[in-house]
């Protein structure tokens, strides 16, 4: 019952999150010995997710994933970075970081390829329904050549 009321009040919240991601540098971009492309990049991530917090919010789990398609795969989603935001005060931030997790393709399809960067957030309640949403940022692309 408390669970239902808590989640109901969460639904009444109309959030207005915003985010920006800049790729500051492609650190390196190689084909690995097993034949798969791998890239290391440095990003500037800034966001204001304060409006997502309600009295029933325990934390936000946020992550940035790269999305692109290849001849073999209609969708590739690779998480590059994640963080936990434990309170509203920490939900407006910017961070300069390289990818936390390895960005490896299934194959060697990345040269010159366009991709999206998506900032996802997963709202973990103190109790009740969990929900998630995202902001999709388009227009990024890999270098034409390995480096």
């Amino acid at each position, binding site marked *: 019952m408390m*669970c239902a009321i808590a989640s109901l009040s969460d639904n009444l919240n109309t959030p207005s999150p915003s985010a920006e991601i800049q790729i500051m540098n492609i650190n390196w971009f190689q084909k690995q010995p097993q034949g798969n492309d791998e890239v290391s990049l440095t990003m500037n991530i800034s966001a204001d997710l304060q409006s997502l917090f309600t009295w029933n919010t325990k934390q936000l789990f946020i992550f940035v994933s790269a999305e692109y398609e290849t001849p073999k795969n209609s*969708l590739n989603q690779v998480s590059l970075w994640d963080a936990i935001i434990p309170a509203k005060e920490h939900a407006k931030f910017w961070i300069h970081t390289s990818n936390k997790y390895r960005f490896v393709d299934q194959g060697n399809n990345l040269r010159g390829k366009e991709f999206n960067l998506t900032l996802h957030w997963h709202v973990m309640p103190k109790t009740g329904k969990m929900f998630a949403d995202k902001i999709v940022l388009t227009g990024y692309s890999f270098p034409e050549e390995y480096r």
Partner: protein
Amino acid sequence: MKSTHIRQILSQAITLGMVVSSALIIWKGLICITGSESPVVVVLSGSMEPGFKRGDLLFLYMNKDPIRTGQIVVFNDGRDIPIVHRVIEVHERRDSKEADILTKGDANDDDDRMLYASNRQWLQQKHIMGRAVWFLPYVGWFTIIMTEKPVIKYILVGALGLLVITSKG
């Protein structure tokens, strides 16, 4: 006197039977509604902290929607116990719509590759039992105590039995 006594025992047995079958109906109903073989799961480890702690209860839901990064899934690829972790990578085939899936516990540094059975590099959709959609803290501790300290289970069942026998109906 004797026939009233028998009637009392019968009515208590029927009440007990009704409680057990109601619980079973609710359980089967949950399986049906949530589309998941195990609609409710207790968090057993700390690998998803601070979001989920040991003893939290998760409600699962499963449908034909594709698996995507960020989803918290319960998977069992042939191990003893199912694991609740987050999807961090998805590669979906253009032709078959089958997907290679990689998971990781929020609190772990490494992904789950070392945990997968049979030297598997990726999970498939068939290994996913459900997505966590609802969450209740602490409630699962009841199940953990029952499993890890069976003596408490026997004490409780004994006390329950005593209560049924000694109650006036």
